[in-house]
């Protein structure tokens, strides 16, 4: 890898140095440099992201054995999906998870950002503390919460029985497990969304609030009339990113794999985890790819939407 770059430099410098101004050789020099600079990443993304994306769309039409033998099966995998109750289960669990997580992250993210908005030392300290969970790995997060939620002797159960609320099997009871997973996800992710909202809040000119205050607007009024409308771009970004995170963020796999394995009674079987199970536990690569392709198409759709609504994510050329 290291050899490529001296060569690049050589190639660029070997080009005839021409008088200043706009000449063809100068332009060619720039072309060559541009392509060479973009090449490593373009190639890598093409192979390791683009490739799998296309592969997941086509792999769904094959049956793949554990040894890597492929046989074309047409729409069989997709037909099987429609008839697989566990697929529908994982889909409904995923949808419930999205419906719970996205608003929860929006509200906690914005709420916390509003609370720590003013730049004081104390607020800086609170911001830092709220972000700490983000820096720990999801495997550790899962293990720590598992300990706290252990049946009978876990600290939470000690606490609830001290309050005379009884004891619960938080991760083993189909009534609670998904909500517990949502709670832990919010605990883990809230600091990130708080920071994104803080970035957005900082961009709102302070004069607006002062003007509103002079006009006698209440705090609630200035929140509804100034903060929310002016936060719209940030809100859009947060909703988009948190939706994608709810569908396929790494917590959808890591938390489930370590804490519940999709159980109890498949109530935490998020789609990403179910796809993983089919592929790597049951060696059903073709079937897993077929299910994954649904999400790849969905995410591509979201990307197009995001692209259109943000004018290409601030595509401003100099």
């Amino acid at each position: 890898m290291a050899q490529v770059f001296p060569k690049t430099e050589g190639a660029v410098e070997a080009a005839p140095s021409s008088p200043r101004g706009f000449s063809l050789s100068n332009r060619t020099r720039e072309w060559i440099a541009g392509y060479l600079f973009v090449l490593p990443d373009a190639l890598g993304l093409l192979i390791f992201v683009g490739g799998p994306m296309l592969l997941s769309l086509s792999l769904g039409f094959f049956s793949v054995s554990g040894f890597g033998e492929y046989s074309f099966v047409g729409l069989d995998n997709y037909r099987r999906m429609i008839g697989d109750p566990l697929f529908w289960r994982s889909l409904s669990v995923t949808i419930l998870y999205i419906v719970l997580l996205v608003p929860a992250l929006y509200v906690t993210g914005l709420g916390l950002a509003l609370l720590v908005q003013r730049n004081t030392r104390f607020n800086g300290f609170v911001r830092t503390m709220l972000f700490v969970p983000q820096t720990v790995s999801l495997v550790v997060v899962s293990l720590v919460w598992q300990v706290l939620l252990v049946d009978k002797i876990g600290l939470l159960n000690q606490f609830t029985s001290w309050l005379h609320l009884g004891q619960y099997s938080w991760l083993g009871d189909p009534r609670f497990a998904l909500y517990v997973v949502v709670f832990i996800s919010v605990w883990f992710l809230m600091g990130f969304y708080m920071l994104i909202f803080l970035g957005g809040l900082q961009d709102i000119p302070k004069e607006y609030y002062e003007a509103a205050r002079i006009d006698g607007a209440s705090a609630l009024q200035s929140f509804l009339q100034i903060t929310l409308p002016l936060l719209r771009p940030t809100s859009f970004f947060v909703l988009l990113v948190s939706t994608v995170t709810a569908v396929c963020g790494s917590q959808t796999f890591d938390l489930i794999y370590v804490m519940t394995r999709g159980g109890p009674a498949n109530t935490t079987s998020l789609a990403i985890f179910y796809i993983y199970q089919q592929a790597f536990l049951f060696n059903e690569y073709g079937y897993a790819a077929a299910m994954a392709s649904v999400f790849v198409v969905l995410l591509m759709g979201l990307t197009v939407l995001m692209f259109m609504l943000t004018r290409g994510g601030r595509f401003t050329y100099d």
Partner: protein
Amino acid sequence: MTDAWKAERNIERAMVRPTQLVWYVIGLILSFMAVAPLFWMVSMAFKKTDEVFGQNLIPHHPSLDNFLYVFTQVDFFRYLWNTFFVSATVTIVALFFHSMAGYALARLRFPGRDAIFLTMFATFLISQPVIIVPLFILARSLGLLDSYAGLIIPSIFNAFGIFLLRQFYLAVPRELEEAAVIDGAGYFRVYWSIILPLSRPILSALAILFFLANWNSFLWPLTITSDQNLWMVQVAIASFRQQYNGAWNYIMAASTVVALPTLAMFVVFQKRIIESIKTSGIK
């Protein structure tokens, strides 16, 4: 300013006090809720088996036995080294590639530049869990199973870094490089001696984020390695947990060891991390 205005300010300041106090209490409770689980992790790591589930945060008889046990029972140093090696390599190579690509996409003019950027942007929302099955099959057919290359190479490429760096370079004044180009410096030299030093702040912020992300990553190392000698720490503690089911003091000691480097990094670089995330939202 008028006296009336000053008086109003003073009244306001006086009135703020009680609410301020309430906010201190709320702020402390929120902060405690955020970090309490991690306090208990560290606490349990120092506790003996008989008091693991005690309500005391400070162990009665703190000991390092759990840590000694973890390090003697499993080859933890090896897993830590693997993780460090992979994370550091991915971070360095990724920053090098992304800054080159970001610079070219922001600054150099060549046919197809916008198309290339758009294509890269199309992968923006595709996260690894979604493409894990085809990625695994691809990596297997490239002979990357159970190898450092398999752990490292697929983790290097992501559109996020390119996107942020390109955004950064768009804001850098053009005059700086133009002078050098006219002087006849090659583009690589302009990149190496002008652009790279300029981007030190954003590169160091991204370096921290990339390193943390790779240190904490679980799914890909779990999928691509079955050879224990290549395990990364997250895979190691997940399997340790299965092996020592219920021995929570050992599991918490292992977790503490794994979490410590990232927590330490956060403590040292918190300002930079927080600033870089605050500005990463699309506005």
